[in-house]
């Protein structure tokens, strides 16, 4: 009896995660995918490849860089390097989320599989909501959200691809702009640690600065350099307050 009850509640948590498809972040991501669709359709990437890309790469910025590399006629090695460098951020993102998701008994293979569903939207969503889910069900909850989100966007891409090639420029521009604006608002809104506000502000300035200084490694340098600066400043505030108290 106990077991049956347990299984039912797991299914329920999976479905709770899946229902996240109706949340604001998921809807904005889907609109961004409509924008991505129009970008790939104009670039002449065949529909099957766009659907394949959506499922297997998943992270939207990585896909934009991949498509740009394809368009510029880059070699496989060059494209690999460009996408790899731009995706380093996934490592600290996953590393920050894993301690919130797992229990001591969560198997590593399961986390490795589920990590595929982590990209910025799923990360922001999970960091924001996982606190309200009992720890034993967090992995299930995230699986429900992640798998549904990827499947829904693959279907969405397949359906809208033919409709979006001739979007009016204003719509295409607004769809593109949704992504940065949404990331900005939701990271600020979901921050539960002071260091996040500081890292956000410093990263916004450090990104363009390193792009100007060393364009190939800008995101990496802005992240490691800016993040470390934010962390050390916040830590010194903390220790000063402890001394003062």
């Amino acid at each position, binding site marked *: 009896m106990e077991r049956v009850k347990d299984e039912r509640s797991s299914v329920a948590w999976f479905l709770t995660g899946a229902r996240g498809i109706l949340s604001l972040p998921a809807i904005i991501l889907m609109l961004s995918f409509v924008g991505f669709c129009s970008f790939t359709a104009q670039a002449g990437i065949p529909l099957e490849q766009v659907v394949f890309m959506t499922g297997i790469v998943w992270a939207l910025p990585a896909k934009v860089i991949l498509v740009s590399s394809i368009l510029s006629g880059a070699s496989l090695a060059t*494209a690999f390097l460009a996408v790899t460098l731009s995706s380093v951020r996934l490592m*600290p993102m*996953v*590393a920050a989320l894993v301690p919130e998701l797992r229990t001591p008994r969560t198997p590593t293979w399961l986390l490795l599989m589920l990590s595929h569903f982590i990209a910025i939207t799923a990360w922001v969503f999970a960091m924001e909501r996982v606190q309200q889910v009992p720890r034993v069900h967090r992995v299930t909850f995230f699986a429900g959200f992640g798998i549904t989100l990827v499947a829904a966007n693959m279907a969405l891409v397949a359906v809208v691809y033919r409709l979006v090639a001739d979007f009016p420029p204003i719509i295409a521009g*607004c769809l593109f*702009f949704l992504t*940065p*604006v949404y990331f900005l608002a939701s990271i600020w809104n979901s921050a539960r640690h002071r260091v996040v506000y500081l890292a956000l502000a410093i990263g916004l300035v450090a990104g363009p600065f390193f792009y100007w200084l060393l364009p190939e490694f*800008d995101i990496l340098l802005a992240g490691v350099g800016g993040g470390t600066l*934010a962390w050390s400043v916040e830590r010194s505030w903390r220790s000063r307050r402890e001394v003062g108290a």
Partner: protein
Amino acid sequence: MTWQEGWWAYVFIATAGWLATDIWRWLGVLAGRRLREDSEALNWVRAVATALVAAVIAKLVLYPTGVLEQSPLWLRLGAVVLGAVAFFLARQKPAVGIATAIATLAAGLWWLGF
């Protein structure tokens, strides 16, 4: 052997797309398994992850691709700033900030004759 020819396209996407991104996710899982939730190391990881995402955001606004490449910088920055003002006036409701920024951009693009 161009990227569009049959199976090669899929090998290209799987190598330069899937492998290039999932490597970092796997390394993240292995690193994250060792981090305690209240540790200073996790605080640093959190700061680096956030700064990386922030740098991506700044690049998307300052150096966009597609239609927005031809739009003036002041319009994009103005849309973000107005969006931020609306976000804080509305007690940090993301939807309000996002809607204001997008409406500003749309109005600007229309006015410029896009």
